[in-house]
């Protein structure tokens, strides 16, 4: 699993959970099924894209700083 894919997974979960959480704090109305599914899908897609970018950037940052550690731990 790469850093980007791990970030994408976290982002998808965050996007879905944030939609439900925003309903719980009163910012969204999820009483009906169809707009709820739309909100969840949009949240998952946006979260996945952002998570991928964040994971990719953090992965590059990590490799730049810990290249030697990563190589040694992979042995």
């Amino acid at each position, binding site marked *: *699993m*790469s*850093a980007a*894919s*791990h*970030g994408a997974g*976290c*982002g998808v*979960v*965050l996007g879905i*959970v*944030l939609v*439900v*959480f925003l*309903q*719980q*704090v*009163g*910012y*969204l*109305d*999820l*009483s*009906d*099924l*169809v707009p*709820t599914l739309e909100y969840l899908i949009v949240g998952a897609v946006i979260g996945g894209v952002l*998570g991928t970018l*964040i*994971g990719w*950037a*953090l*992965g*590059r*940052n*990590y*490799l730049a700083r*810990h*290249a*030697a*550690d*990563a*190589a*040694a*731990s*992979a*042995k």
Partner: protein
Amino acid sequence: MHGPGSTAEPWVLIGSPRPKRMRSAPYRSRRVGLLAAVVVVAVVALLVSVPVPARASPSVAPVAPQSSGGVGYTVTWNNADVSSASSASSAMSIDLSQTANLVYYYNVSLTGPSVTISDARLQMYYLGFAVSTRDQVLTNPTPGSGHIPLSWTPVSIGYLLEGVYRLTASFLAPNGTTMWSENFYVRGTAPFGFVALLPIVLLIIIVYEVYGLVRSGRYAGIGRPAEGGAPPSTPPPQPSGESAPSEETSPPAGPPDEGGGSPPSGGSS
């Protein structure tokens, strides 16, 4: 081996695994902890700041009953007409731990058809499904005007959910057909303002996933060297080695990664 003290120190340094990592780990965990704390504070601030439109109090002024087929129907929630909360932005703010007193009024005109109401129903919807249904059934329904009181104490829901929900108030005939119904919105707050299971669980998941996202960079070091036999990102051997005898023997011999100490592998004389 126990000769002069100068030879003992390199052995200790070689045996200690990665002094740089041991130094930076608390620093990194402190940064992650600080970030998690910031996220928690931001989310709690989000919890507290309830949107102003959701706090709209219902109007107590009487609203003319809405007629359907010569019959006027009105539903009140704690003496407030529910038709004033017909959208999510004008939802009534309620405490889910308190009892709600609803009254279903139906006025049949003298010239209108004979209508018999036998059931007053209240349903609460979430994700398109009715999570709560409350019925008040009349044992001896008679044609004509009347009212049906219905009390609802959603304590069990209050400990589970909060937020904005759509409710439907319905009048049912004895044969089960819906004579009239109206949708309205409420914004329920949990007991003590925060004791609800779902928001707390969601908050924990959010913090956990943000933590996982912040630490996702560490996954970049996993599997990358496994693609090729000789990873291209491996640092060149330290110049202290005389001729770099073989790349295979240097990693298990000790800490060749950063070479924090002065004598990484100078021999064991």
